[in-house]
């Protein structure tokens, strides 16, 4: 039979290694470390269309992640989507006239909120609102617009035979 002490040591090593692995998964493989927003504050923005934005999508300023989307709602008065974002407390100097847009990282990547700072001396506070927003680019709309321009242009400007 195995010695009691040896057995205990092995079990201790096993459990410690297992917990370490769980921690590694959470913080190194997963996004728990970046998901945490330290003593953050909330700001809100209304968009015409949020596309594929999800709760916990990143919020960036100049490409730096400064927070995450905390909740997505719908305002029945304006028929717009209300996105509330949790911004890290360290970034508390965001001008009130900042604009928010929804971008896509890469061609088919995830969507995120990008902020572009304005020039105001006043800064957004908790429950502050961003007025200037630009909706997500919806691929179908883009393609649709492209097609209409293709069809309209030749008819208006040049004869159809000019096309290659």
């Amino acid at each position, binding site marked *: 039979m*195995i010695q009691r002490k040896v*057995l*205990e040591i*092995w*079990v201790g*090593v*096993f*459990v410690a*290694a*297992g*917990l370490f*692995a*769980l921690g*590694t*998964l*959470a913080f*190194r*493989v*997963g*996004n*728990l470390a*970046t*998901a945490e927003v330290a003593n953050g504050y909330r700001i809100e923005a209304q968009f015409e269309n949020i596309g594929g934005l999800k709760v*916990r999508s990143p919020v960036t300023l100049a490409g730096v992640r400064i927070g995450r989307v905390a909740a997505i709602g719908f305002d029945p008065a304006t028929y717009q989507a209300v996105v509330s974002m949790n911004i890290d407390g360290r970034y508390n100097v965001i001008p009130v006239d900042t604009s928010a847009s929804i971008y896509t990282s890469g061609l088919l990547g*995830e969507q995120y909120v990008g902020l572009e700072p304005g020039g105001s001396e006043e800064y957004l506070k908790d429950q502050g609102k961003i007025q200037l927003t630009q909706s997500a680019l919806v691929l179908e709309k883009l393609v649709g617009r492209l097609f209409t321009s293709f069809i309209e242009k030749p008819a208006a400007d040049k004869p159809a035979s000019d096309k290659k």
Partner: protein
Amino acid sequence: MRAFQYLGGAALDGVERLGRATLFLYEVVSGSWMLVRRFYLVIEQVYAVGVLTLVIILVSGGFVGLVLGLQGYNTLAKFGAADSLGLLVALSLVRELGPVVTALLFAGRAGSALTAEIGLMKATDQLAGMEMMAVNPVTRVIAPRFFAGIVSMPLLAALFSVVGVLSGHMIGVGLLGVDVGAFWSQMQNGVDFYDDILNGVIKSVVFGVVVTGIAVFEGYDAVPTSEGVSRATNRTVVYSSLAVLGLDFIMTALMF
């Protein structure tokens, strides 16, 4: 007529066994309060169930990671998305392969050993002997093994995933030239703690309950002869593998 009779008999048999298993597991859980006082019994079994399964889990995790790295790279490179290799490896491991392959290996290594051990204890009158010594074998023998299995499974699955990611990193970054930064940043961006990791852990806990539950029940329910024990061991591996794969489908459908 014969076929119907056979079918009916088999169905009734199955329902009866299921009922007995449920009652048995209820007894195991309700009798487990004594483990709080005698936690050493569980630790002993974590050694038998967890530590002794560690090597096979680590080695398998390593190989699965290597294969994922190679196959993933070949496929992703066609689309020019080789940078996403880390994401692919990590997601496959954390969501599916980690919990499922660990559970299958666990059933083969620890589950069969549990069934054989308990079945032999039954065949050699050790369980009856305990009963006659006024010791309830369900709380003294079964419950510690059951809980050790539940504790060990998520830890083993996590180790499997981590080793897999590391060996995927080894093959992808070390051999195939994927950028280190891209490998890890894509992974961290794409793997969500709640959606992916936590759900993977939940899966492995459920698999732990199911595989260990089947193993201890089959051992306790075995016909107390050498043939009966070997049949029970066989059943443990078959039933728990099927249960793991079936439950994995159901849970995946519900979770993701």
